[in-house]
């Protein structure tokens, strides 16, 4: 192929235009605040991801309908993490460098959030996640205090597990954890809380993902004769473990996080295998007017009840908290917005539940936004403390028996 100088210059020009394009885009976006909706649309987070993304868009519409934040419209750019850290980093890079987003919302699963947070820190923008890993609370991940978590930490899940085990009268718990920050966070949180109550854990096993069988791991745990096994696990590995445990024939009870012991697990292994399994998940702030607004929006967009996706309630709250902080800061400077997030969400102040109502109240004084996912009070690490629902799997149904507060 021959290549003339004219062609070369033409290509050069086109390339320059392409590289220059983001700044042209930015020039057009003076009156908007751009947010990246980075959710797990595919991969193991796929049961939740698309609903999460839709609620970011719906909440942004609610904000824009009330006149936007600090005089600006909220604009959403959507990307998929594929529930995979590598894919999430590529998507986050694109959102930051090409789309010039000023905040990223909606990352799910700790591996993804831990991979994305260095990028948002470098770009000095806010990251709001729904992940549990304790490492997200502290430096280096949250060195700049720009990361907010709308889900309970794995440590808090562990504390809830310990409360439940005590209430149910278990004496000899063992743990099984998927080898990542979230899995081990759950079981370590449990172990600490359980030992603080003066009890002992009889066995701890950490296992690797993507194994064809977990029989040896089970063998080790069951050899300690536990009366309950507490897990920090995901759906795929839990499916294999539950089938192999059932075949072993040794009776034991299970306490699991809700993302593992979900209706999908019942469907995968059948109701007999998971009968009596205790599934624990954070519950939304179901009696609040903000939850009612979220539930309506969720039903309208997906046709499902809002209860079917606790993470969508979290992403709904993300947009609200962020937009209120922008309004309170009266500008789009990240440092100024960041300084206002706790101010608009935490007590004291007038309790508010919708964006329009909050925006009005903000003119008069201090507000306290109460979210759909929790009362949304951030501690010094940017973490919230939701309540935990305790679900018993009975005849293939997840029945909520009680709520645990920690």
């Amino acid at each position, binding site marked *: 192929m021959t290549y003339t100088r004219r062609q070369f210059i033409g290509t050069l020009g086109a390339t320059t235009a392409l590289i220059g394009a983001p700044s042209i885009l930015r020039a057009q976006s003076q009156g908007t605040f751009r947010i990246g909706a980075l959710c797990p649309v*595919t*991969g*193991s987070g*796929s*049961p939740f991801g698309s609903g999460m993304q839709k609620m970011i868009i719906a909440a942004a519409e609610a904000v824009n309908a009330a006149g936007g934040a600090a005089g600006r419209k909220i604009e959403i750019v959507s990307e998929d993490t594929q529930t995979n850290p590598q894919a999430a980093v590529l998507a986050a890079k694109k959102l930051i460098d090409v789309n010039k987003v000023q905040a990223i919302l909606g990352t799910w699963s700790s591996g993804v959030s831990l991979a994305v947070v260095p990028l948002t820190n470098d770009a000095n923008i806010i990251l709001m996640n729904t992940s549990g890993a304790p490492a997200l609370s502290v430096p280096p991940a949250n060195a700049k205090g720009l990361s907010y978590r709308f889900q309970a930490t794995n440590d808090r899940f562990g504390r809830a597990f310990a409360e439940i085990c005590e209430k149910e009268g278990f004496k000899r718990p063992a743990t099984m954890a998927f*080898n990542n920050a979230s899995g081990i966070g759950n079981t370590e949180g449990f172990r600490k809380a359980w030992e603080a109550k003066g009890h002992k854990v009889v066995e701890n*096993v*950490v*296992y*690797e993902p*993507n194994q*064809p*069988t977990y*029989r*040896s*791991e089970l*063998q*080790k745990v069951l*050899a300690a004769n536990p009366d309950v096994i507490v897990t920090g696990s995901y*759906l*795929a590995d839990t*499916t*294999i473990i539950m*089938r192999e445990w*059932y*075949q*072993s*024939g040794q009776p034991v009870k299970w306490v699991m996080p809700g993302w593992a012991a979900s209706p*999908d697990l019942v469907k*995968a*292994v*059948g109701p007999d*295998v998971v009968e009596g399994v205790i599934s624990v998940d954070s519950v939304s702030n179901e009696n609040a007017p903000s939850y009612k607004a979220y539930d309506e929006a969720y039903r309208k967009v997906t046709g499902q009840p809002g209860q079917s996706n606790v993470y969508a309630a979290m992403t709904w709250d993300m947009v609200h908290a962020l937009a209120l902080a922008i309004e309170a800061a009266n500008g789009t400077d990240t440092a100024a917005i960041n300084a206002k997030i706790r101010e608009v969400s935490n007590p004291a102040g007038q309790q508010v539940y919708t964006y329009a109502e909050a925006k009005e109240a903000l003119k008069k004084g201090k507000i306290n936004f109460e979210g759909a996912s929790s009362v949304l009070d951030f501690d010094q690490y940017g973490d919230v403390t939701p309540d935990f629902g305790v679900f018993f799997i009975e005849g293939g149904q997840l029945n909520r028996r009680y709520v645990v507060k920690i």
Partner: protein
Amino acid sequence: MFYAQLLVNGLVQGLVIGLAALSITLVFGIARFPNAATGDFMTFGAYAALSAHKATGSIAMGGLAAIIATGVISLLAYLAVFRRLAERSVVALLVASIGIAFFIRAVLGVAFGHSQQVFQVPLSRPYVFGSVRITPLDLQLAAVALAALALVFAILYLTPIGRQMRAVADNRDLARVSGIRPDRVMIALWLLAGSVAGVAGMMLGIKTIVTPEFGWEMLLPAFTAAILGGIGSPVGAVVAGLILGVVQEVSTPLVGFTYKIALAFIIMLAVLLVRPRGLFGRLEGAR
């Protein structure tokens, strides 16, 4: 007895690895490149078996579907891509196989979605021998694997086309001079390699769960087994798969569950240092 149970666990795991390694080593012995699409051929086989199982309710039909469909897809990959690149370097073929792997995974993802699917097989209590527990499902899967192996070895060692395949594997030019048509050999090879991968995929799928990525994740242990066994040696691949499975499981009381995977690679390193051609491999002169 604790170790006896671990040994059984390891054997079952090793059979799956061994079948996948067999598919890799067949292709390497005859077509002379490492086929990175093997893992996704397995995934394809698992989905084929899953669909047939859902439609007919019979695992046997599922197995048949896995064998036929994966054999065909493997042959198509050869006709569309690998044949055209046959004269290129190993790297070109390897990269092409990675491309085919991505393609198959993406198509399966679009067609079946990314959420996990499972074979709805009835769960049954294990047979207990002393303190060793063996589930009926594992026995059935072992029987299927052994039958598949027996069939492959019968084809390789008892049929004219098998003899021709081994001749091409031994010395391609000499085989051609002796009147062996490479085209027929290659078609037989890709059908066989695909079918073996399909069976391995179905077995893994029945034992675990099926997602579009699950075969790809088995590729590393399968490659390890193929190298350990002596690349190009069918017997070596199967034996090495069993060794890997057993060593990983039996070592767990000593090294724990996190490092058992690393152990497989330490064994491979040791074998390559002491015996670079692998357990059953032959020395080859430089070309």
